[in-house]
């Protein structure tokens, strides 16, 4: 047992002496986590408002046209410009200097209050990026005025039917309807209530809660599998043979190396979580025990996968491309880069063959959904089983010495 620990210590000493390993284990993962978190986090945050300058040419100058301008001015993301004549406004759109322009016809106010058809003209270039947005806005305004017209017509006909009088102040009624409608816009009596489930209103999707465990698992796999490949390097260099002909039990020799790989993996994930918590306030969830156990199980499975790969591949030149393929492939489909639940169902099923999927499911449940240890027992169990199978097969195939 003493020799096992000496071998482990020697592996860790070699790691400390290897400057490139420090880059791989510490600097690169932290840098990648930060970069990816910031890049993807930008999509999750409220984006800076895009402001569209909209020239509006008012040929009407009446009360209804003023209301149109008022509504548009209060519209978010819209900057109304009234300084241009129609020709200039159209030219600005043609030249691509404005996304669109609006023309209010000269009879607009009269038409509204008299119930006559009219139109607000929106000048746009086809296929413009903001054209749908502008169309939506104008349709909203015209829809409002159509409702006003309808309301006025209904109201007047009802008053006429009730009083039998046709001597009514059409314009006054229409103005009051429009004014009331505008007031109601600020505090509508009927509104849409959006309810979200799976979290409180205060909690926003924390991209680092996904990126930190995702990249922690991926880089831990790089570290552990690279260290496993070190066994092949030792075989080629001759130090493994030197150890085999020393009086060391084979289980101590391999156990010492595997323990070191396991500890490197645990250390790396712990470092990434610590960094995430301190630098980006990543929520580690409600179960530190669950988080610890899923980490230990993940590193056990990864270490065992390493010994299996070393036993099967047997050549240092081959092991690096193969482990890279295994790591990137399983990270891509296993949920290291995107949450597993956002993947297509088919991919989610295929991902179950990777240890990354089980690890990430556990981390997501604990860190993003606030789960407890009870919620990740299955993930821990599968990872332990995964490790046991890889370890058993790897040990069976591993060649300590020449036949």
């Amino acid at each position, binding site marked *: 047992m003493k020799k096992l620990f*000496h071998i482990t210590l020697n592996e860790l000493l*070699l790691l400390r002496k290897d400057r490139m390993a420090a880059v791989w284990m510490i600097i690169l993962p932290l840098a990648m986590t930060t970069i990816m978190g910031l890049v993807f986090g930008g999509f999750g945050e409220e984006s800076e408002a895009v402001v569209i300058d909209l020239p509006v040419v008012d040929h009407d100058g009446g009360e209804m046209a003023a209301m149109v301008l008022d509504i548009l001015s209060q519209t978010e993301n819209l900057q109304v410009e009234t300084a241009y004549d129609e020709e200039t406004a159209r030219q600005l759109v043609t030249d691509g200097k404005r996304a669109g322009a609006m023309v209010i016809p000269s009879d607009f106010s009269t038409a509204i209050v008299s119930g006559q058809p009219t139109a607000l003209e929106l000048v746009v270039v086809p296929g413009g990026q903001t054209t749908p947005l502008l169309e939506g806005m104008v349709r909203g305004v015209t829809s409002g005025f159509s409702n006003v017209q309808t309301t006025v017509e209904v109201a007047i006909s009802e008053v006429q039917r009730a009083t039998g009088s046709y001597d009514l102040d059409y314009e006054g009624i229409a103005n009051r309807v429009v004014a009331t409608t505008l007031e109601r816009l600020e505090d509508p009596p009927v509104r849409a209530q959006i309810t979200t489930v799976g979290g409180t209103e205060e909690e926003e999707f924390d991209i680092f809660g996904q990126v930190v465990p995702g990249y922690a698992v991926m880089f831990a796999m790089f570290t552990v599998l690279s260290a496993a490949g070190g066994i092949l390097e030792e075989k080629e260099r*001759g130090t493994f043979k*030197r150890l085999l*002909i020393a009086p060391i039990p084979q289980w101590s020799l391999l156990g010492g190396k595997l323990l070191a790989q396991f500890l490197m993996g645990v250390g790396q994930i712990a470092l990434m979580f610590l960094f995430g918590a301190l630098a980006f306030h990543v929520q580690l969830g409600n179960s530190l025990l669950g988080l610890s156990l899923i980490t230990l199980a993940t590193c056990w499975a990864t270490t065992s996968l390493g010994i299996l790969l070393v036993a099967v591949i047997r050549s240092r030149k081959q092991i690096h491309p193969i482990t890279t393929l295994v790591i990137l492939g399983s990270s891509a489909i296993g949920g290291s880069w995107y949450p597993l639940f956002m993947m297509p169902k088919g991919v989610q099923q295929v991902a179950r063959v990777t240890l990354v999927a089980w690890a990430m499911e556990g981390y997501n449940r604990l860190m993003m959904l606030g789960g407890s240890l009870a919620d990740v027992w299955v993930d821990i169990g599968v990872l332990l089983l995964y490790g046991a199978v890889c370890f058993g097969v790897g040990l069976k195939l591993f060649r300590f*010495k020449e036949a």
Partner: protein
Amino acid sequence: MNEPIVAVEGLVKHYGDVVAVDDISFEIQEGEIFGLLGPNGAGKTTTINVLCTYTEPTAGEIVVAGHSVTVEPEAVKRAIGVVPQDIALYPDLNAVENLRFFGRMYDVPKARLERRIGELLKLVGLAEHARRRVEHYSGGMKRRLNLAVGLLSEPRFLMLDEPTVGVDPQSRNAIFENIQALNQQGLTILYTTHYMEEAELLCHRVAIMDEGQIIALDTPQNLINTLGAGIIHIGIKDVAEEMLTRLRALPQVKAVARRDNTLAFETLDAQRALLEIIGLFNETDTPMTSLEILEPNLESVFIQLTGKQLRD
């Protein structure tokens, strides 16, 4: 006679269809420097691998320091030291760290290990470079540290597998001096090499190996003496049996062997024999295609025995 420290009887090692070692037997006495001389692929390293328990023999009885390598490999490992052909060191560690780690693998107690590290670094002339990373050492320095690691456990029997490959003359001399000093202190050594001058210089007895077999085993001097006073090789196109009989009858010729288009003469006196041989060739008008006089040494012995160069 004392029990030999190594007793090999009928060692055979196959790798699939390839016969690496083909039924060899030898003994090494305590205090001896025993050489295994042969070209690359002769089976020297395979023999060492079996003796140090790294490789399972296909057949044979092998006892090292009183323990069977197949039955008691752990006891064998504790009695031996091995200096492999590869530089089996951690390049990222310095000399002390390398020695300390391997010393721990041999259960050398801490205080003794530290003392031993100091002694060995001094012995191999690396005390001043003890804290330098091994990756920055020259090839010779690495070889010397490789030797020091093999001596950490104070073994009874040390195996050195081609310890001077790729080494500068200065380091080679230092390694020779180390080996001779260690042997004088009582250490038994098995030394493999394909440099005949090394075997001649260092070894008390030499086994010459070729194609997995021991083709000669004796002291270097006795092996050389079998050549008489020298070897003459003469290239020929063809020679009649009668001519061979007449050549064998020459007074200064001990023996004549024919290999392909070469006649190899063992002589009593190479210079006189040469005159007799040339005289007979002239007399019979037999053409020569080449002529070579070999100095009597282990290389010549090997050539005489196999018809091949050691460095082939």
